[in-house]
């Protein structure tokens, strides 16, 4: 504990040069999934609050949890299963806001591979991303009673890359997709929705909370930090609501911020449309029932459970209460 405190103190020294500087580490590359933050930046919502926000894009080998532990960011976008798992590993992350109300994760299968219900998974090869994104999947498999070690009664799990090729090349019967990204890549590739079977995590009752904002617990002891975060969350949520109402403009703002120059307008506009469905209904404050649902889902896996004991203090309304007060 002492070590962590010291690490956090060092991190605070490294990053807290000016109280109003905020560094946000995204979970993945610049895309409409993070439109709210880019909109808040471009529309000057952060500036209005007196914040100087730096948005750091992620990538396949960037774990937001590691970045924040290393003091590389003040606040990170992460999925709750990954954040709770990190918490159990000794990195006390706290959810301060939850802009995403619903889960966009699904398992997409080719009909021709003979999968129609979860009972058909047996003996099939299923793809999932790793690096913190595997928890909802592993948890679902545990709930279904499938072993994930490739034994004949279980399923064979593939670490899928960053695209949908395993499905197109028929290397896997099903792959993980997000409603706003990979699913449309499958469609774009020329496969029709009728040829696919989708298992949505929400309908299967195994949904967990996705993109939320997390900070280190120690830093919340400082009222000034809470205050800064309140401003940040308020401006970010303003950005999100603006993006929901003006999806095309939001997509263009994201495109302007894409430094690889490889994203396309069509992709981002469509992604924004799908993202808006997921952020709808959230004012930023974490819904305690949703949180409890995620925790219950993650602990249901028995011996393979993602987290072994109910986390305490893994979320706070302190920031959102302040942010939404006026």
């Amino acid at each position, binding site marked *: 504990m002492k070590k962590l405190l010291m690490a956090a103190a060092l991190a605070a020294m490294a990053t807290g040069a000016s109280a109003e500087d905020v560094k946000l580490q995204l979970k993945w590359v610049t895309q409409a999934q993070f439109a709210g933050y880019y909109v808040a930046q471009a529309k000057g919502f952060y500036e209005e609050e007196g914040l100087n926000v730096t948005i750091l894009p992620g990538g396949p080998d960037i*774990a937001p949890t590691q970045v924040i532990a290393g003091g590389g960011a003040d606040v990170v976008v992460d999925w709750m299963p990954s954040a709770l798992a990190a918490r159990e590993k000794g990195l006390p992350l706290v959810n301060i806001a939850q802009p995403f109300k619903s889960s966009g994760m699904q398992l997409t299968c080719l009909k021709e591979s003979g999968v129609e219900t979860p009972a058909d998974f047996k003996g099939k090869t299923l793809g999932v991303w790793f690096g913190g994104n595997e928890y909802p999947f592993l948890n679902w498999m545990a709930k279904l009673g499938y072993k994930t070690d490739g034994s004949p009664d279980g399923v064979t799990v593939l670490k899928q890359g960053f695209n949908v090729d395993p499905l197109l090349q028929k290397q896997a019967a099903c792959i993980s997709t997000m409603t706003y990204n990979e699913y449309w890549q499958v469609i774009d590739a020329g496969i029709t929705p009728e040829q696919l079977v989708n298992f949505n995590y929400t309908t299967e009752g195994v949904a967990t909370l996705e993109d939320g904002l997390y900070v280190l617990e120690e830093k919340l002891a400082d009222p000034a930090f809470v205050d800064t975060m309140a401003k940040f969350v308020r401006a970010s949520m303003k950005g999100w609501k603006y993006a929901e109402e003006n999806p095309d403009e939001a997509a263009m703002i994201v495109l302007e911020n894409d430094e690889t*120059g490889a994203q396309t307008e069509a992709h981002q506009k469509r992604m924004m449309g799908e993202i808006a469905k997921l952020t709808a209904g959230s004012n930023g404050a974490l819904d305690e029932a949703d949180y409890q649902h995620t925790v219950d889902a993650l602990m249901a896996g028995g011996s393979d459970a993602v987290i072994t004991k109910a986390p305490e203090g893994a979320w706070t309304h302190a920031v959102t209460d302040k942010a939404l007060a006026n």
Partner: protein
Amino acid sequence: MRNLLPILTILAGIIVLWYAGTVWLNSAWVYDQAQRTGTTVSFSEMVAQTMDQDRPVLPPPHQVAAELGKGLFGQAVTSKRSLIYHGYVTFKGTMMGFGLGIIAGVLLAMAIVRFRVMDMSVMPWAIISQTIPIVALAPMIITLSSRLGLEGRDLPKAIIAAYLSFFPVLVSMVKGLRSPDQMQLDLLKTYGAGEMATFLKLRLPASMPYFFASLKVAIAASLVGTIVGELPTGAIEGLGARMLIGSQFGEPLIMWASLFAAAILAGMLIVAVGFVERLARRRMGVPG
């Protein structure tokens, strides 16, 4: 020029094989799609369809060339969609890593040649260091450097590039600094030359051919390091990042074009280093 014809022949062979591969690898998708829609395709239709897919398993050369041309000349070089812009980012990282690698390699080589203890302790570990997959260290290098207050994405990338490029310099310089034979060393001793003078007047000049020979290897290693550094970490700008985005968003053409842009960059760097090498050799009076 004597080699031109053979090279062109081989290249032609590669292109023919490539087209054959395109048909072979992309045909599965054409047949699958036909089956899904319940139609059949003739052989010639199939071949035509393999040449122009949106996400081919193996894009035919002309598709790659078109994408490459679009990336290189399709827009202003300052545009984020320009491969020249991304090539420049990668070039910058490569040169930083190259410079760091040379400094580290030369300094270490000097210490190793001067101090026996360095030779015995460090040399085996220098070899072992190259067997560590640097990509595995990349995320940690980034986190650690941000922890130490080193901002920006250039430095971590340059460290990875330097990590790969210092080794060939080190090995060649150790060999080069040791290349003067006993007779030459004895001669300098009879002149009453001290350690410093021996180093400056004999060892250093003697090591130069070795040094320049190692640069070609080092620059290639540095480019690989930079691209590897851009590939998984940050994925923000540079040719490596574009390869990654191409892969992630199912745009194989972007990936292939970046790959060839990287090849062109590699070719230019090697030619440039070769030119410097020849220039230096001529000035130092080395024949050949």
